[in-house]
């Protein structure tokens, strides 16, 4: 059979450009033969906002608020990685109390993000009871966020050299109680996923990523931990208070959607453990010592990493001694995770594809911040290769001193 005849037999099923369930702009083109998916085209890049360029025109302090708005769900991850990067640049040591508070915010974000994913996963499966449950029990987590930071999302807590708002010692008991109340629903979710026949039937053995594939495709976060690769920046390169409290990395072996759900649910229980450890730690430190009072940022470069709910988020900041970053580069985890659908979705059925494509917990607004498009022809004028070449050229120019940050 020639290539042409083969094409005639396949049907193209479009999902996107505006995803009906995830409500984000991406375009999956499923090439199917009957029910079976044989090819998958992923088109991303609908979401250009020029965040990196904007960061170069703002003060270091203002950029923390800007990167918070890269994504609504990861609104602690990006500033977390960004302040880590700037602290690496300027060699700033932050007070212990600020470390604990940062970890608390980071873990609260993981809790609500995983609950959001769990709800969406149920919704994708058509099992809306899970959706309603998960989002119902997500509310108390957001209430804790509001109580600590002053907002349900967009915490405005991260500051170079510390945090902006203290958790008062008098408040700790109340927050502890709210955390305790989370354990019961989380245990219920563990049970609900482990023994629910519907979830078993729909997710077990679906969208398998083997350990080798996960390593080959450089996957991150719960996606890779579900395939038996134990990587976690919180443990491998400790920052904030993650090496000061007791917790463990959750790893499962099968790499299917069920395991990805399991990893996320068990991680939530670990997150509660980390939060409680941090609250214990807060009692040992002095109230009000939350800021290292940074005066200036020297020239140099720094990298910052944070294990976001979806995987490792990476920020690179280059300073030239002024009060604005000369270059700011963001790499979000979905950038690595989304292409893995090329493996996991192919060979399955269309009905499975919906949940498999969502299993990596994609976040497009984190991932996409640049695309070069000709406005007249609507064609991309810079391909991926061009961008790599440009990036390498810029790095060479910086090293050789041809290009200097303004």
């Amino acid at each position: 059979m020639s290539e042409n005849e083969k094409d005639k037999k396949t049907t193209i099923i479009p999902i996107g450009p505006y995803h009906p369930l995830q409500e984000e702009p991406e375009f999956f083109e499923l090439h199917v033969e009957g029910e079976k998916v044989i090819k998958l085209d992923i088109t991303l890049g609908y979401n250009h906002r020029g965040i990196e360029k904007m960061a170069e025109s703002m003060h270091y302090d203002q950029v923390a608020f800007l990167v918070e708005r890269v994504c609504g769900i990861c609104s602690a991850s990006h500033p977390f990685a960004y302040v880590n990067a700037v602290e690496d640049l300027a060699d700033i040591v932050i007070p212990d109390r600020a470390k604990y508070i940062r970890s608390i915010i980071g873990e609260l974000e993981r809790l609500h993000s995983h609950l959001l994913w769990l709800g969406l996963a149920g919704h994708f499966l058509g099992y809306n009871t899970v959706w309603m449950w998960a989002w119902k029990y997500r509310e108390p987590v957001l209430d804790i966020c509001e109580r600590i930071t002053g907002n349900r999302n967009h915490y405005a807590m991260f500051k170079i050299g510390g945090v902006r708002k203290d958790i008062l010692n008098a408040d700790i008991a109340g927050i502890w109680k709210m955390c305790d109340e989370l354990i019961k629903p989380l245990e219920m979710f563990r049970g609900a996923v482990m023994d629910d026949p519907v979830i078993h039937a729909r997710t077990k053995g679906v969208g398998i990523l083997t350990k080798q594939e996960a390593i080959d495709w450089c996957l991150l976060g719960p996606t890779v931990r579900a395939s038996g690769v134990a990587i976690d920046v919180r443990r491998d390169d400790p920052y904030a208070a993650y090496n000061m409290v007791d917790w463990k990395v959750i790893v499962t072996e099968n790499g299917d959607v069920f395991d990805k759900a399991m990893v996320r649910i068990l991680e939530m229980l670990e997150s509660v453990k980390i939060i409680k450890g941090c609250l214990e730690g807060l009692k040992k430190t002095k109230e009000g010592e939350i800021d290292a009072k940074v005066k200036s940022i020297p020239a140099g470069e720094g990298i910052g990493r944070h294990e976001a709910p979806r995987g490792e988020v990476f920020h690179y900041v280059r300073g030239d001694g002024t009060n604005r970053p000369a270059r700011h580069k963001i790499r979000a985890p979905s950038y690595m995770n989304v292409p893995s659908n090329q493996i996991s979705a192919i060979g399955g059925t269309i009905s499975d594809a919906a949940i498999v494509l969502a299993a990596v917990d994609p976040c497009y607004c984190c991932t996409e911040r640049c695309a070069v498009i000709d406005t007249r022809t609507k064609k991309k004028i810079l391909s991926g290769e061009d961008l790599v070449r440009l990036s390498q050229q810029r790095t060479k120019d910086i090293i050789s001193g041809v290009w200097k940050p303004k």
Partner: protein
Amino acid sequence: MKYPKLREIKEAVTALIQGPYTTKFPFAPHTPAPNFRGKPIPDEKECIGCGACALVCPATAIEIIDDKAAASRELIWHYDLCIFCGQCERLCTTEKGVKLSNTEFDLATSDRKTLFSGIKKELIMCQMCDEIIAPKDQILWTAKKLEHMAFGNYMVFSALLNNLGIAKFVSKFGVSAVKRLDFFKVLCPKCRRQSHLIDEYGDSHFESAK
């Protein structure tokens, strides 16, 4: 196989008794947490109009409009641009000029032009070149901070006297006014330097230096 369904029934029954988990917000009032970051409300009395908040605002939601002819400055908080981060409150010069409300959050409207609040401040202008020196309240605030040392600076203490109603600001001197008197005018830093140079070295020297 039976247990999962029993669990669902239990949850359904409790939900039936307790009613919906969601709040009845638009129909019933909602009280946010005490820490909640809501609408920033400027304080006419405590704000000194220095404009530090506009410099630190990450969303550039605070606008400063200087009217030189009327010698007044308007500071406007645009709530449609505001991200409610609380930087203006945290970094306020007087620490009391603007406060984030923890109850006012319901700002939805069909006309975004109504989404602002502003305050007006009187400016002190240079008597030579009509350049803005600072808002009157900022100078008075500085004078209060400096206490007895405020009298070391003519501009500050004249603003103090003016505020007490003892002295009056003359709107503008002619350039031909007696040179020596220039020391006792309310001048912007540039004009003060200029008059000082003229006094020390004379007109001709200053002209050549220019």
